[in-house]
């Protein structure tokens, strides 16, 4: 009796698990999830660009996926459901690839952004120091030149006397 009860419980748990897995698979294959995925892929790439990075290869891949989605919509509206599903699967695969590679591009963009800020922070005081020194030395050289000219005039005046 107890063994039968355990077996029944295990069967129910297995069936529940199978139902959940099937539901998840159906969700990930429906057009709505594709619409969400393409927006998510765009958002990820947009954050790469907004932080100063670049990922043209991923953008190109996303554009291919968008074209496939549009072709799938047209095929679906023409009653060609098999072709539509096939095109959607191809688009889904491309978007998954973009979503998988986007974090690395984001890291690279953040790294590049840090380097740019670091360079700017370091370069500003250096440029200011060099410019100040140049200006200071220029004024000193000019005053020295004026003094020399004045001295020269004095010597000439003395010689004439």
């Amino acid at each position, binding site marked *: 009796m107890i063994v039968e009860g355990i077996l029944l419980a295990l069967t129910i748990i297995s069936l529940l698990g199978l139902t959940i897995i099937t539901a998840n698979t159906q969700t990930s294959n429906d057009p709505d999830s594709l619409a969400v995925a393409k*927006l998510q892929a*765009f*958002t990820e*790439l*947009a954050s790469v660009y*907004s932080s100063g990075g670049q990922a043209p290869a991923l953008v190109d891949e996303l554009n291919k996926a*968008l074209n496939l989605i549009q072709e799938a919509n047209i095929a679906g509206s023409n009653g060609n459901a098999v072709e539509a599903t096939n095109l959607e699967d191809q688009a889904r695969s491309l978007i998954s690839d973009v979503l998988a590679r986007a974090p690395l591009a984001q890291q690279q963009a953040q790294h590049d952004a840090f380097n740019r800020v670091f360079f700017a922070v370091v370069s500003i005081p250096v*440029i*200011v120091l060099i410019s*100040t020194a140049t200006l200071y030395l220029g004024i000193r050289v000019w005053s020295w030149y004026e003094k020399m000219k004045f001295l020269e005039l004095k010597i000439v005046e003395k010689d004439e006397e």
Partner: protein
Amino acid sequence: MLATITTSSVTYVTLNPPAPERFFATWIVGANGLAEHYFPNDNPNIAVGEQVNWTLGVYNAMSTLEYVVVRVKLLNSTIASPNETAGNPSPVPILFEFTRVLLPNETWTFPFVWSMLNVTQRGKLTMIGKLSINGNTVNGALTEALLGMNFRFVFELWFYDENLNQFAFSWTTGNIRESAWTQVWFNVAKVVAP
């Protein structure tokens, strides 16, 4: 001290230039890639089955990555055009869409080849019932116009607004609402009764 202030100011201005104006631009050109010869033999009275070749262009000057959609609509002269001041699109269904993710400063051009496949006459009204756009058929009671005059294709540029989490037709630059759309007018050549 004066030297330090001067050089610091110059350095700051050099490293932080003012932000450029942000906008989208759209345009249509004719079969030869110029703003002319929009119709076969330069005749805007288009017959059923006659093919018209245009090229649409979109320029992204938003300085960010943008997900854009060009929405194609068919209007007559009495249906409201998109309202730039209010930021409202034209209130008719979308016939066809072109989508793309645009890089900053990217220009995107694509062909728009169309022909009317079915036109019906009902009294003085001419109705376009079937169109071919880039080889794809678009069905339905699309639009009608008096004596077949003054139909127009309107191309609205929409973009994905991450803050709103939806596509938007207009954006704001310096408290001014802006939008990008363009249109081309045409007539249906007189339909011969069967």
